[in-house]
């Protein structure tokens, strides 16, 4: 009974109907990066278990993280982390009841999309510096 009444109701248009906006993209990205970070914890567990197991296991982690595909995943991982973190900070602002007017929503949206990119770039420049690349 519940199912039938639910299905008979009209549905709101799906995402492809609307003109894309930054705030909408960020909302979707917040969830997407969250899911990606969830899957990424497998890598965290692998890294820690390998370190706890021994040099041979750890060498495998190092080999994969040094390969181009490993680097690509780690680069994406770090960006997802920063993006999700700033998305969360945005939600903290909203939790206080502030920042809901369009002007501030747009400002916050821009800041929380650009800062994660800068931080990701900064972190990787620093990481390569520590690896002795410069």
């Amino acid at each position: 009974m519940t199912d039938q009444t639910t299905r008979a109701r009209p549905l709101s248009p799906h995402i492809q109907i609307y003109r894309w906006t930054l705030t909408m993209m960020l909302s979707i990205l917040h969830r997407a990066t969250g899911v990606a970070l969830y899957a990424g914890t497998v890598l965290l567990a692998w890294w820690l278990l390998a370190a706890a197991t021994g040099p041979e296991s750890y060498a495998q982690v190092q080999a994969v993280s040094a390969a181009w595909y490993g680097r690509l995943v780690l680069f994406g991982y770090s960006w997802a982390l920063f993006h999700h973190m700033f998305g969360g900070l945005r939600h903290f602002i909203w939790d206080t009841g502030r920042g809901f007017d369009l002007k501030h929503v747009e400002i916050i949206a821009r800041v929380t999309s650009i800062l994660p990119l800068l931080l990701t770039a900064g972190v990787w420049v620093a990481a390569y510096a520590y690896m002795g690349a410069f």
Partner: protein
Amino acid sequence: MSDMRTPLSRVRGLGSAKKGTEHFFMQRVTALANIPLTLFLVGALVVHAGSDYATMTAFLGNPFIGLIMLLLIVSAVYHMRLGLQVVIEDYVHGEATKLLALIANQFFAFTIGVACVLAVLKLVIG
């Protein structure tokens, strides 16, 4: 089909689950904790980007580093379990599949959490 009551009236009188705000609150608490904890991990990984096995395990074997790692693992795993639960509840509509997905979420989160804790304990205690 004879039941014309609203969903609200059907649950009234059954008592509350007493969990109304726990999910929301813990999502925020763990989110807050995750900020300094993940920043610490990222910083540590950057500084150790060129480190070999011995240096890395010596670092992770430090009890204070181990403590931060354990706090990070507990907070992050708690947070991601709550987050994915909402994603599942939003997108998986079949009762059986939803239930299975929610259980899988619990199993995955607990497995990752226990695996990471076990590894950190071994690195610290030896």
